[in-house]
C-alpha cells in the first residue's frame, strides 16, 4: 500500500465531503432532546456533588433533614449517623475499649 495507490485527493475527497455535508450538515436534533436531558440532569443530581468527607457528611445530613415531617428523634439519629461518619476512629476506639 503506497501513496501512489491513493486516488487524487482533490476530486474524490471533495465529492465525498460534499455528499456527506449535503446529507448531514443541516441536520438538527429536535428541541425535545434538550428538554429530556435537562429533566434527567435535574433528576439525577442538580445538587452539588460532594467531594470530601465533610461535604459527603453534610450532604447525607441534608438528605436526612429534607423529609416532610422530620422529628426530634430522627434528627438525633441523623446527628449520631453523622458523628459515626465523621469520627469513625473515635467510635472504633470506644467500641473496642468498652467491648474489651
Amino acid at each position, binding site marked *: *500500500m503506497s501513496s501512489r*495507490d*491513493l*486516488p*487524487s485527493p482533490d*476530486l*474524490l*475527497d471533495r*465529492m*465525498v*465531503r*460534499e*455528499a*456527506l*455535508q*449535503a*446529507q*448531514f*450538515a*443541516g*441536520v*438538527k*436534533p*429536535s428541541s425535545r*432532546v*434538550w428538554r*429530556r*436531558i*435537562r429533566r*434527567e*440532569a*435535574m433528576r*439525577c*443530581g*442538580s*445538587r*452539588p*456533588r460532594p*467531594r470530601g468527607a465533610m461535604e459527603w457528611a453534610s450532604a447525607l445530613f441534608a438528605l436526612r433533614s429534607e423529609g416532610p415531617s422530620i422529628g426530634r428523634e430522627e434528627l438525633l439519629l441523623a446527628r449520631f449517623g453523622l458523628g459515626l461518619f465523621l469520627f469513625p476512629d473515635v467510635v472504633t476506639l470506644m467500641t473496642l475499649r468498652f467491648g474489651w
Partner: protein
Amino acid sequence: MVIHHPDGPLILRLREGDVDALGELYEKYKASVYRTALAITRDRGAAEDVLQESFLRLFTHAHRIRTDVPLHPWLYRVAVNLSYTWVKKQQRQQERALDGVLEGLVASLHFLPEQWVEQRETQEAIQQAVAQLPLGHRVVVVLFYLEELSLKEIAEILGIPEGTVKSRLHYARRFLKEALEGRLPVGGVVYEFT
C-alpha cells in the same frame, strides 16, 4: 497552575451540578455530536438518544473530565462509542431480519436536502457507498470528511494508532473510488480518480 480551556469553567460548573452550564455546552456541541451520531447510525431516533446519553454522561462524569484540554474529543468519543454499540445491535437484529440493505437505501434518500437534487445521483452513489463501508471505516470517513478532524484527532478519539486511521481512510477511499467508477459516468461526466 492549571490553565483552563475555554470550556474549563463550564466543566467546573457542571461539577457543582449547574444544569445551565450543561445547557451552554449543549448549545455549543449539539450539532456536531448529533451529526456524527446520525452519520454513523443513519437513524434520527438513535442519533437523538446518543446525543442525550452523551450529554447526560458529560453531566454525571464532569468530575473526571479535564478542564485544561478541549472538550469536543471527549464528546466525540462517547458519541462514537454509543453509536457503534447501537449499530452493532442493529446489525445483529438485521442479520436476523435480512432487511438491512433496504433500510440503508431508504435512510440515505430520506436525508437529502432539496437544494442538492441536481447532484442527487452522484451524491446518492457516494452516500450509499459510505453506508456500505465496514463500520470502523465509516466512522473514520465521517470524522474526517464530515467533521473535518485531523488524523491525529481521530486517532485520539477512537483510541487507535494514527497509522490505523490512515489505512482505514486509504481503504475507504479505494472502496469509494471503485464504487463510483462502477456507477459513473453520471450526467455525461466521466470521473477519473487516478
